[in-house]
């Protein structure tokens, strides 16, 4: 697999930023590597699109990993990982409810906190706290390079630090 994935180290977690098409494959790989405890799925509105953040822990050695993937507003579809970790079922429903993210393959994708009749996905940044649309909100441009693009090769004089992966903040 030609990986469209960027790996970095943030604090004590390995963070993978991955193309949505490769998200499911990466999750299957992590499941095979023994990451068995799903902590949460967080949905985020990035301003240019929606982001799914999956937090996992491996119980045997307490390694933590975070998987992120970004999808555009027009087609916010991500593969569901409910069959790998049943514990994310409600988190995926919550992300659908709050942000409008749709999880392909989810067994029961309906609203969880709000009522079924609602059309609002309130955590999107285009709405204010009360659920009113903000009049002057415009989506930002898709980032370039793309979020999962690996960082450019280090300059020759900084080559000594490149092995650490960088303490990004």
């Amino acid at each position, binding site marked *: 697999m030609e990986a469209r994935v960027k790996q970095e180290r*943030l*604090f*004590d*977690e390995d963070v993978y930023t991955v193309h949505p098409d490769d998200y499911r494959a990466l999750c299957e790989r992590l499941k095979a590597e023994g990451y*068995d*405890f*799903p*902590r*949460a799925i*967080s*949905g*985020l*509105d990035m301003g240019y699109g929606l982001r799914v*953040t999956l*937090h996992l822990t491996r*119980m045997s050695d*307490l390694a933590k990993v*975070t998987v992120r993937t970004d999808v555009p507003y027009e087609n916010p579809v991500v593969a569901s990982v409910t069959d790998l*970790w*049943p*514990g*994310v*079922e*409600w988190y995926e429903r919550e992300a659908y409810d*709050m942000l409008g993210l749709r999880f392909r393959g989810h067994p029961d994708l*309906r*609203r*969880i*906190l*709000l*009522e*079924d009749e609602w059309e609002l996905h*309130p*955590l999107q940044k285009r709405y*204010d*706290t009360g659920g009113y649309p903000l009049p002057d909100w415009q989506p930002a441009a898709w980032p370039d390079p793309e979020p999962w693009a690996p960082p450019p090769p280090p300059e020759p004089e900084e080559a000594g630090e490149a092995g650490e992966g960088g303490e*990004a*903040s």
Partner: protein
Amino acid sequence: MSTMNLEPVPGRTDEMIVNMGPQHPATHGVLRVVLGLEGERITRAVPHIGYLHRNHEKIEEARTYPMVIAYTDRMDYVSGTQNELPFVLAVEDMLGVEVPDRAKKIRTIFFELYRLASHLVWMGTAMLDLGAISPFLYTFWDREIILGIVEKTAGARMLPNYYTFGGVRRDVHPDFFKDVADFLDHMERRMVDYEHLVLESPVVHARTKGVGVLDQERAVARGVSGPVLRASGVAYDVRKAFPYDAYPDVEFEIPTSPDGDTYARFWVRFQEMYQSIRILRQLLELTPKTGPYKGRAPARLKPPAGERYRAVENSRGELGVLVVSDGSDKPYRVKHRGAAFSNLQIIPDLFVGAKFSDAIAILSSLDPVFGEIDR
């Protein structure tokens, strides 16, 4: 009906569909479960949540960092300051704030006091669900003592808004350490009574042993944490796994039970109360009586752009928060990982096949708090 989400099976006349909640004395709040019953046995169960959804995560995006702390209090309202800690820790990580040693210990004392308060509320209400009134009267008396200690220092009983970035908001009351020591003496005597009232009660044995068994693999895959996970035999405790504040300095054990039934969850909570008393005793010895209670935090809180996930072990399990900052004085996104939210997902697994009266016992052993589930 569309809102029931449980359609009768065509041609099946022996199944009755019963709605339980949101106003039900044994749902610990506003949970609603739609149950399919065949005689007394539960065939299907669909939980509905969201009756206490009060836009925590949206409204926190419109508040500055210190203001968010007051909102986190209102999530798991039974265990007060415990909710503030993950958010405070995450922002401290992003800002790089140093917390004085004494402040860490004071925070941990409050953390464990609220664990005792929360488990006392659980014990009273769980026994109410099983039909026993008197434990409620004892546990709430003891809870009032804890809240009195908290109120003397923090100024509020339930939702004190006491932690802050770099420590705590104000120094403890001069009587604080003596009050806590007196309370621990009292609590140790009371634990003997509680053992008699709850764990040794033949009614509790009959209603909980072998009921609602949750095996280890399913518990982990379902993301269950806290006493419910430890009752299934997994020794996962954030206090040991990813230590924070003063937990590296104290000795305690992680009580686990291999049984995974409702009684094991009762038992694990009891053992946790003993461990809390043990931790508090050590902290009373270790904490200096005077000294700094707050580190140096910047006056205008603007964490650098980035994100941080931090978790603590609150009374119900792993309470986490993902804080995303864009460099302004308001968080870009605050995502709460509720322990009770994950724990409640196993309702269909545990309810199906159980008897209707067992469902009440199972639910009270999960100890849900809806402020944190619905947010």
